[in-house]
């Protein structure tokens, strides 16, 4: 693991992951083989936060790594199998995802812990995180009021709180359990800025009162969980002030148990964003670990798409 020399927090996390799951070494090697120093530094910061958060939960980092292994081997692999067999995601509705998964506390703990680690360990997720940390957040103007839709493991809000231009933070999620988890993580990480976390159904949020729009909205890995991502993104766009900045990420061909909406290619995602009255400033596509974009698309493997968009006057 020579690639990890100089990145002590990545080294700590990877060492613990491989202790729980030795057979994962080949994947890890491929995932870290060609990362830039900037991506490595971003992931090292993230791993430092994960370690700090882990110190405050029962079971600590070893439990989080066990959850990552369990979820990857027993859940993600089965979803990949279904997807390759049938060409579609296994879950068809939000109600199905809600009844099968969102109400299962153990399942959700493993899921959230898996996602937290995957952000650093999976090459496509790491590249998205790097772009968020090193491109999107630094581009925000002083005095930014930022909202995240679906903050989940809380790390996007944590790093937004650490960003000087961001002065007010809000997080919305339809699930009280998810909001509680985000609150615990932000408390564990010692976030000083006030974060307004709220149980809020996006479709019932209506329109913002005049002057209450957000300067920046983050909606990461949410659209694929919805039956109608177009309607959802239109609702979100209503809360962005003109010329504000929205960070949108969603994957192509990414079978997870609660992924409902299948994007077949990047263009579908870009079209959807434009149809919601947003103008795309920048977009990038990041293939899964160890693959070129062309190969990932040919093999129907996951590709993460990250978009910075704005709303015109």
């Amino acid at each position, binding site marked *: 693991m020579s690639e990890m020399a100089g990145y002590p927090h990545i080294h700590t996390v990877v060492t613990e992951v491989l202790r729980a799951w030795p057979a994962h070494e*080949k*994947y890890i090697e*491929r995932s870290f083989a060609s990362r830039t120093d900037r991506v490595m530094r971003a992931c090292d910061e993230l791993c430092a936060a994960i370690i700090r958060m882990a110190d405050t939960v029962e079971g600590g980092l070893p439990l989080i790594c066990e959850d990552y292994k369990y979820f*990857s*081997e027993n859940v993600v*692999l*089965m979803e*990949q*199998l279904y997807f*390759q*067999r049938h060409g579609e995601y296994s879950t068809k509705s939000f109600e199905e995802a809600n009844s099968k998964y969102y109400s299962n506390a153990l399942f959700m703990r493993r899921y959230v812990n898996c996602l937290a680690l995957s952000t650093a360990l999976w090459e496509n997720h790491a590249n998205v995180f790097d772009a968020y940390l090193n491109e999107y957040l630094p581009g925000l103007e002083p005095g930014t009021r930022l909202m995240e839709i679906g903050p989940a493991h809380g790390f996007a809000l944590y790093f937004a709180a650490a960003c000087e231009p961001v002065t007010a933070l809000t997080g919305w999620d339809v699930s009280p359990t998810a909001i509680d988890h985000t609150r615990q993580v932000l408390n564990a990480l010692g976030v000083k800025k006030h974060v307004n976390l709220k149980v809020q159904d996006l479709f019932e949020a209506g329109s913002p009162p005049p002057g209450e729009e957000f300067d920046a909205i983050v909606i990461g890995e949410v659209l694929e969980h919805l039956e109608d991502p177009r309607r959802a993104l239109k609702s979100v766009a209503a809360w962005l002030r003109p010329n504000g900045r929205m960070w949108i990420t969603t994957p192509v061909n990414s079978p997870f148990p609660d992924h409902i909406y299948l994007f077949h290619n990047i263009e579908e995602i870009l079209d959807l964003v434009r149809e919601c009255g947003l103008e795309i400033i920048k977009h990038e596509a990041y293939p*899964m670990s*160890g693959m070129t974009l062309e*190969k990932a698309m040919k*093999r129907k*493997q996951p590709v993460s798409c990250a978009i910075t968009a704005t709303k015109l006057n």
Partner: protein
Amino acid sequence: MDRSEILSKITELMRDVFDEDDLVVTDETEAEDVADWDSANHVRLIVAIEEVFKIQFTTDEITAPENTGQLVDLVASKLKG
């Protein structure tokens, strides 16, 4: 279908799935020996084998084989039914 025919067909599938036209496959070939043989591509290989041989693996069978020889034996046993 005899064992060598199964190995030959699986070799073709492995060359396609792993994008290695010159891949040499023996009974002893395992994931460690093939650069692209990771968990995601293992799933693709399994589904390709299911389609060609018109069989379906159980959840346990998908991860059980430790090398190509065991995979060939598993396919042979399922073809016998």
